[in-house]
């Protein structure tokens, strides 16, 4: 116990506060000394703005940086989705004819030129004015090239959905779940002062920023951004002649390579921290489930990302150095299936990277708000390990129709279906946790309930795809789109929203406004289901994904109304998120000031003072029990903090 504290101190002094010179007897620290030292920090060590907010080494600041980064990218990615949703609702808008929209076509509502303008050239709406200016201008305007009269050119359409998915997966969900929650929660919840490698931690964030800048640059290069889908299937992605995209796709690959390094650095840091720096008494089976999930995810990231990185490197060689890893000619060459194997060998664990921390967060929220221990803590941990392990042997289920040997399909179907078992265990255990509880419907709990129910839909719809004969039909249709959004939006994003509201008091020392949070929750929940549930129906109707104009197909004519409905819901969903942003920013400055442990939680992060100072704890807590000691019989308080000594008088609240 003593030793453990000293380790934390050393690192605290040397790396984080850079004032080891005035404190050379680190090894001799006692608890009292510890307290003094904290005062020293506060008194003598005012950090510069840049050190504190930009190139920060503090895990909490880096976590907040990742959070804001992810939220900004969420709006970029969502905006792209809304653009192509508009197209899907109104795909039959006029083409250009001699620099003006052709006559006798359906105009694009609101943002396109009006019917009057198309017919008589009369400027009626604000949009007409904009388009008139664009048509009359001599320059090659961006909109005129990519969206003449509001209609999105097919190439631009491909670019939009490619970047929507790329940004959402690599720049929103992973940075928020792993970067933000991982950084903020791990040291606080395991009871240590910071990450094992604060400089690497900073590097991880700034590499992610670099990756985002490079990704953004891709929009402005000639030929446009990557348009081969987020999966970047070769040979479409491997040879510029098939898409006409030059540096856009190179930058896409380079950016993802850098993002891979960022994740790698972060995951090494997480694993080291969790293994080595747990507070005294914090055994592995006393770790909160969210820490377990982040630990498992860090291992997945460490093992999976290098596979993508090597595939991307080969892709870059193919594009720039004339190799043929993924292309073939009549004389020979590589294999287009190789890319799919490499991509999905990374890609499926990646899917679990996106959902496991969500499961962890939901577990915390459900236990706290049901005032009960997690039902079957151990089996929850084993289920997560099982999901992570099975994640390595199911990648072929993305490739049932790829031309892979059909015999392999049987194997991958079986392994994929097996994942239903640990997923079911988790779901039943969440229900078990609520059983005979005392459920408080706080906003974080609402999000956790939404997480569970949406995850149930996303999980059940997965069975259709795991089933090879049925997958033949629904593969590459909107059924898949519905499924992935139920898991990643309905699952991960609801967990993220719930997590933000739950830990906001610890992050910023203030509450988020609860009324706004509740309005945001209900509108998001309804709009989300209106947007994505009908996509199951589109998929059953055989509506392909990634097509810019469903109205070209006779058998998809009936879905015009449904596509319009989905688009309207998607816009609602998008605009509702502004409530969250307003609430988030407003609450940082104006929210109600939060006490130390506002939700009456047992875990260690709530032992730290609010706002959490450098070094987190006045003294490193000692852990006496598991993380979910709620409503213990015979105790007066309905929760016993992990750090509360045995047989000591209860110190409820703080």
């Amino acid at each position: 116990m003593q030793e453990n504290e000293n380790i934390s101190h050393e690192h605290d002094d040397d790396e984080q506060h850079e004032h080891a010179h005035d404190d050379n007897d680190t090894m001799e620290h006692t608890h009292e000394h510890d307290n003094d030292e904290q005062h020293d920090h506060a008194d003598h060590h005012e950090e510069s703005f840049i050190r504190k907010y930009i190139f920060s080494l503090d895990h909490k600041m880096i976590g907040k940086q990742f959070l804001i980064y992810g939220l900004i990218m969420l709006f970029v990615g969502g905006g792209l989705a809304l653009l192509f949703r508009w197209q899907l609702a109104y795909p039959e808008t006029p083409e250009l004819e001699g620099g003006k929209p052709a006559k006798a076509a359906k105009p694009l509502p609101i943002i396109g030129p009006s019917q009057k303008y198309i017919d008589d050239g009369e400027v009626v709406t604000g949009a007409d004015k904009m388009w008139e200016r664009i048509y009359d201008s001599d320059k090659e305007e961006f909109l005129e090239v990519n969206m003449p009269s509001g209609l999105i050119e097919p190439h631009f359409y491909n670019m939009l959905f490619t970047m929507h998915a790329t940004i959402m997966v690599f720049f929103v969900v992973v940075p928020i779940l792993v970067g933000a929650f991982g950084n903020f929660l791990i040291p606080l919840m395991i009871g240590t002062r910071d990450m094992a490698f604060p400089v690497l931690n900073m590097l991880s964030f700034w590499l992610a920023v670099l990756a985002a800048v490079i990704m953004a640059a891709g929009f402005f290069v000639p030929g446009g951004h990557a348009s081969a889908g987020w999966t970047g299937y070769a040979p479409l992605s491997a040879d510029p002649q098939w898409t006409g995209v030059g540096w856009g796709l190179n930058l896409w690959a380079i950016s993802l390579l850098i993002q891979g390094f960022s994740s790698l650095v972060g995951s090494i840091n997480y694993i080291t921290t969790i293994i080595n720096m747990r507070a005294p008494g914090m055994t592995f089976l006393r770790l909160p489930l969210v820490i377990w999930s982040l630990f498992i995810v860090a291992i997945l990231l460490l093992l999976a990302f290098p596979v993508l990185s090597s595939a991307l490197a080969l892709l870059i060689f193919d594009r720039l150095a004339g190799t043929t890893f993924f292309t073939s000619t009549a004389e020979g060459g590589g294999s287009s299936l190789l890319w799919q194997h490499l991509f999905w060998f990374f890609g499926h664990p990646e899917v679990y990277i996106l959902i496991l921390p969500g499961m962890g967060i939901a577990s915390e929220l459900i236990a706290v708000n049901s005032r009960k221990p997690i039902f079957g803590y151990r089996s929850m941990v084993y289920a997560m390990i099982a999901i992570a392990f099975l994640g390595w042997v199911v990648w072929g289920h993305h490739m049932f129709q790829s031309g892979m040997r059909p015999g392999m399909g049987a194997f991958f179907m079986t392994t994929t279906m097996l994942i239903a078992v640990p997923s079911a265990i988790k779901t039943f255990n969440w229900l078990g946790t609520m059983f005979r509880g005392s459920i408080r419907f706080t906003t974080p709990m609402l999000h956790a309930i939404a997480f569970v129910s949406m995850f149930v839909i996303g999980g059940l719809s997965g069975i259709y795809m795991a089933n090879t004969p049925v997958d033949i039909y629904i593969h590459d249709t909107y059924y898949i789109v519905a499924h992935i959004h139920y898991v990643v939006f309905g699952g991960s994003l609801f967990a993220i929203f719930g997590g933000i509201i739950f830990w906001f008091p610890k992050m910023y020392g203030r509450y988020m406004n609860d009324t706004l949070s509740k309005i945001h929750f209900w509108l998001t929940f309804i709009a989300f289901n209106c947007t994505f549930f009908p996509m199951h129906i589109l998929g059953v109707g055989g509506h392909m994904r990634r097509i810019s104009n469903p109205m070209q197909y006779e058998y998809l004519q009936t879905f015009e109304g449904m596509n319009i409905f989905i688009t309207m819901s998607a816009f609602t969903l998008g605009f509702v998120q502004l409530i969250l942003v307003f609430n988030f920013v407003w609450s940082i400055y104006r929210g109600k000031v939060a006490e130390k442990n506002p939700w009456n939680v047992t875990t260690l992060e709530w032992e730290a003072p609010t706002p959490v100072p450098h070094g987190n704890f006045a003294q490193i807590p000692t852990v006496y029990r598991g993380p979910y000691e709620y409503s213990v019989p015979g105790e007066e308080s309905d929760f016993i903090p992990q750090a509360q000594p045995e047989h000591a008088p209860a110190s409820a609240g703080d």
Partner: protein
Amino acid sequence: MLGWLPENISEYAQGVDKLFALIYWITVVAFVLVIGTLIVFLIKYRHRAGHRAEYIEGSTKLEIIWTAVTTVIVFGLAMLSFPEWNNLKSPAENPDYVVQVRGEQFNWYMIYPGPDNELGTEDDLELENELYVPEDKLVQILLTSKDVIHSFFIPNLRQKQDALPNQTIDTLKFQAREPGRYEIPCAELCGFGHSGMLGYLIVQTQEEYDAWVAEQWPE
């Protein structure tokens, strides 16, 4: 939900719709049970003043039950699916007709072997985006691509198979029951013209088909 499926005209793939329906009902029941339980719990165990949660850490018996039940269901489903999958994705034995199909940005080319029944000879006939077949006959498709990956999708036959460049896939086959004209979209992103890469399957009666053949290859 099931009503949205397009008409199934395939002799082979009737089993697909049956499996689909089976999974549909399994998932509907599972959904209703889980969400129903969730709602009951939310109402019954909501926080009330003076009421305390019960300290329950878990139940090994229950864990074993729901693990076992789920395992049995998924294995059962897998077992039911193997024969159907093998049936759909194995090379045709003694097909009545063989047609080569080539995907090429952004069209489907259908190549008929002609009277000599051999591909790559002079009497081959290449059609753009039109695949003529007689009803109730086993047709094998030799699927390939010239440039990138395409996916040959016939919703009404419940068939889909990616076409790979410089590789021929021989596992695609079907037997169409209803004469008519059906769409063959491309289901794998293949470039800017992906949306609108559209062919047609024209299923004819045997007489119509024979007449069509006579027209294409006059004696």
